[in-house]
């Protein structure tokens, strides 16, 4: 009984877990508690976090989007190909977002209008986007501008790369963007009709339809969000890591989905939390970044993340039972 009560608020537990993990790392090594660590964590959390924000919408409808990882990199590769042909960076970013939106729209139409299972539809677009990225980039690695080259300004969206500005060098500006996106999307999910309908679809799609709501439209919208945020994730990835290869994005989607689930969004739909998602992603990233600090290989990060994931889902089930 006490156990059940204790875990009734998954969000609180997840935040507590994040804090505990940080404390333990700072006790294990005095190198952990410094500004660079936060920058490092942010840098490698961006792309997963953006994907996770988008896919939270899809998961809230009771669906799944497996294509986000490859769409992220596909968008980067397509954008990068234009960039190499001299397209200004600003336009390149728009092209990337458009690529994401188009893939999202395709997923949405396949799932809502053609009634394909989301798993299959997005598995298909996952392969298509991976292939398309390879085709467009001619399987080359695409390097995005850095330093003083033209177009390198876009990296400043995610981190300060130069001395002498208002903000210190290496300041993770992307964290601010991430926070804004998270807040805006949390409001969209919880305070707008769009969000309410998305959660309703996840709760009971047929009943929502019989309430006179255009479920196809709103379900599609969720996938479009997912696609656009995947593209944003692709942008964050190339800003931080500068290069994209056709096979880079493989498996990203699972990191994002794991973050979403740890954050308390239910895979069966109807319940979604953007804030939880962000925290879920940060738990995984802190483990990822923290373990090298104490000289431990990444396998242990996977090991522990796996345990946390299973535990998080079990909490969700406990909560459902308690309510049901």
């Amino acid at each position, binding site marked *: 009984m006490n156990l059940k009560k204790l875990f009734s608020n998954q969000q609180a537990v997840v935040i507590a877990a994040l804090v505990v993990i940080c404390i333990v790392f700072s006790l294990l090594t005095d190198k952990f508690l410094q500004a660079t660590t936060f920058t490092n964590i942010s840098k490698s959390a961006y792309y997963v976090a953006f994907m996770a924000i988008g896919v939270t919408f899809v998961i809230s409808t009771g669906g799944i989007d497996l294509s986000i990882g490859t769409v992220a990199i596909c968008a980067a590769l397509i954008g990068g190909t234009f960039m190499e042909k001299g397209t200004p960076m600003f336009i390149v970013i728009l092209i990337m977002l458009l690529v994401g939106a188009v893939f999202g729209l395709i997923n949405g139409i396949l799932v809502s209008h053609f009634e394909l299972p989301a798993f299959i539809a997005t598995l298909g677009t996952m392969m298509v986007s991976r292939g398309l990225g390879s085709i467009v980039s001619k399987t080359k690695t695409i390097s995005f501008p850095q330093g003083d080259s033209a177009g390198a300004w876009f990296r400043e969206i995610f981190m300060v790369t130069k001395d002498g500005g208002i903000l210190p060098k290496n300041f993770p500006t992307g964290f601010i963007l991430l926070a804004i996106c998270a807040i805006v999307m949390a409001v969209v999910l919880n305070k707008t009709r769009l969000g309410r309908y998305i959660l309703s679809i996840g709760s009971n799609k047929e009943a929502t*339809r019989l309430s006179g709501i255009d479920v196809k439209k709103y379900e599609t919208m969720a996938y479009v969000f997912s696609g656009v945020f995947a593209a944003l994730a692709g942008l964050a990835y190339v800003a931080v890591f500068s290069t994209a290869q056709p096979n880079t994005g493989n498996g990203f989607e699972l990191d994002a989905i794991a973050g979403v689930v740890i954050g308390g969004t239910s895979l069966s739909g109807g319940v979604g939390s953007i804030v939880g998602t962000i925290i879920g992603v940060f738990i995984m990233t802190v483990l990822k970044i923290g373990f090298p600090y104490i000289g431990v290989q990444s396998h242990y990060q996977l090991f522990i993340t796996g345990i946390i994931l299973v535990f998080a889902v079990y909490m969700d089930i406990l909560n459902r039972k308690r309510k049901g």
Partner: protein
Amino acid sequence: MSALLTMKNIKKSFSGVVALKNAELELNKGEVVALMGENGAGKSTLMKILTGIYSKDEGTVTFEGKEVEYKSVSESEEAGIAIVHQELNMMNDLTVAQNLFIGKERKKGFLIDDAKMVEDAKELFERLNVDINPNVKIGNLTVGKQQMVEIAKAISTNAKVIVFDEPTAALTDSEIEELFKVINDLRDKGTGIIYISHRMDEINVISDKVIVMRDGEYVGTLVTKECTKDDIIKMMVGRTVFMEPKTKSDVGADAEVVLKCENLNRGKHVKDVSFELRKGEILGFSGLMGAGRTEVARLIFGADPMDSGKIFIHGKEVSIKSTKDAVNAGIGYLSEDRKRFGLLVDKSVEENTCISSLEKFTKGLFIDGAKSKTVSEKYVKELKTKTPGVSQIIKKLSGGNQQKVVIAKWLVKDSEILIFDEPTRGIDVGAKSEIYDLMERLVKEGKSIIMISSELPEVLRMSDRVVVMCEGRITGCLDISEASQEGIMTCATNRQGGK
């Protein structure tokens, strides 16, 4: 002689909410006990405690002289207590025989002996005198047949106590008759039977005594032979309920036609259906199960696409291609299966009340939570919905109160045409009359209602006119002044296209 089964002073609460206060039950060998009570009175909870689905907080259960406490359904089954659930628990892709013997598969060595199972199933169905092929997939059977399989399953365990939870809701009259024969048979063999139903007529026919519950408490026991329907109802609700048929309609023949359907067609379920609905009228739709009434409703509501046909609202033809079109045209639909099609059971009363009219509660980009709360609260009050608050999760409400939330949803939307599909299914007597009052109030306020109902007394009590369907066609349209149970049944069995 000591009783076969005794439950005494049973208490149970869920996260602070008391479901059972002081429940009691006594059942002897070879006896049929009807367990009566309004929905939410605690009958299902009591049965779930008996069969080990819930654990009790306090009290004793004595079975065959020993105090028992089952921790799971398999334990209670093992001990000889079987339950036929109101909601079907079937694996649709398995055959009838496979479903029947799930968990008790007949084996030949390590392998499942399908032939033996089919044989056993046939034997069982012969005993029940029903015609079901054990080899077909259960999903292909009608709901009534599925229910019979469920009953057969309970009987097959040779249980000493069998609980029937509203077993007849989906059965035809002939099937009900067979069921009663089986129950009588079981009684003669010494099986104790607990029978839960809202149908008073059945209680009179089948039960030996009636145990009445109200608000989680034991109220009293009546011997069936010595009491009348009204005695039971009085005990259940503490008031008298009349179910007198309407004799005359107040709607004039010249009232405006709000909805007109012309030659609606869809597959074999809806054939050339044409009718009119007048302002302020309750148009009853009667017929046997599978006559196509729900299908017509779903066509009008845009839930299924039609093959051909025209729909006019206020004389103007409208194109209804989606539920959204229908809702915008002023139609609201209350499904017969509230949990699946009517409600978001994991969401709150407020969310369900406002879901169809969120545009009214949107300020700029955002949902105006304060306004939606106020409006929801207003309808909770107006419809006398029993809920601790508008943030209560729908799942925790009783059937009648859930139905009120669905009604509230369409009232908020201000729909002028309401389609009630089995409005009182699974709803207890007290709540039933409240729903009736509500429907009458709505038509007085100028709404028009199509009411699909399988209960003839209900049709005769509520309707101004009765449309009768059989096998996808309209086979009769009777004014209430000339409608009778017999007349309706004649039309309902008038097979025109069938061979």
